[in-house]
């Protein structure tokens, strides 16, 4: 789940916005370039965005007794890379912040950074590392890692804003607490997401074999 509206102090809200905005703007520009390069890519951009919309709307129960939702960014990052994924994620996050009071406008920068940038970059690296070995394993791992690392980042974002004691040890102590809430809950959900993403990416590969994965 995203960081709630108003729950990051002003300076941290500003900090995460400053980090996220360049990626999102660059991603928007890359979307434009991609469509100019190949107008057909519009349909896969739509599929990637649609996948983020569906998966981030599904709040699933997990082993910790609380619910969280997947991120759906694995498909976008495999097909188009991290910057386009950042832009697509920010659209889904904006919908949820404005209409669902889920996440928030003041925490949009932080949530975009975790879900649209940090998680997907890790997913992308894992994909790049594994794709020579096995495409299926690479698809699966990219989606699972992008999902899980999103919530690892969320935990650290909250730990930085709410250290248990001043200083780095306090941040780490808080991080462990928040990881216990977000990351543990996310593990089985990331596995489910990875199965679904694998199915979708395989069918995309079958029907549009010429698609150049990023």
């Amino acid at each position, binding site marked *: *789940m*995203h*960081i*709630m*509206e*108003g*729950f990051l*102090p002003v300076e941290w809200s500003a900090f995460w916005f400053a980090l996220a905005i360049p990626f999102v703007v660059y991603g928007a520009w890359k979307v434009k370039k991609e469509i100019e390069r190949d107008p057909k890519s519009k*349909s*896969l951009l*739509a*599929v990637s*965005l*649609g*996948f*983020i*919309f*569906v998966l*981030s*709307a*599904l*709040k699933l*129960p997990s*082993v*910790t*007794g*609380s*619910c*969280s939702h997947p991120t759906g960014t694995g498909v976008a990052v495999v097909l188009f890379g991290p910057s386009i994924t950042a832009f697509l994620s920010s659209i*889904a996050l904006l*919908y*949820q*912040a*404005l*209409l*669902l*009071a889920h996440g928030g*406008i*003041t925490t949009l920068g932080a949530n975009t950074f975790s879900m649209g940038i940090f998680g997907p970059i890790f997913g992308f690296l894992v994909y790049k590392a594994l794709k020579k070995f096995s495409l299926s394993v690479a698809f699966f791992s990219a989606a699972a890692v992008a999902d899980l690392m999103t919530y690892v980042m969320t935990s650290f974002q*909250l730990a930085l804003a*709410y*250290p*248990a004691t001043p200083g780095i040890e306090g941040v780490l102590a*808080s991080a462990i*607490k*928040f990881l216990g*809430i*977000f990351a543990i*809950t996310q593990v*089985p959900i990331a596995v*489910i997401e990875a*199965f*679904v993403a694998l*199915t*979708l990416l*395989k*069918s*995309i590969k079958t*029907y*549009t074999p010429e698609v150049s994965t990023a």
Partner: protein
Amino acid sequence: MKLQRLIFPIFLILILTASAQEWRGTDEVAEEKIKELNPDYEPWFSPLFEPAGEIETLLFSIQAAIGGFLVGYFLGRNERES
């Protein structure tokens, strides 16, 4: 892909083995933790619009429906064209 049939058993096991009274969201649990770590913190901004009750369910469903449409429509079109 036989492996993918595992999704549903995994999902079932998740629901059946986890026991919880209220199935709260992790964001709500985190909110409690924040109040424990910093009891003086007051959220400085509240959502501009907060859907009440079932309206929230409706808007979440619309989000999923938009996504499902985008995936299904464009994937189907790709398949037809290929």
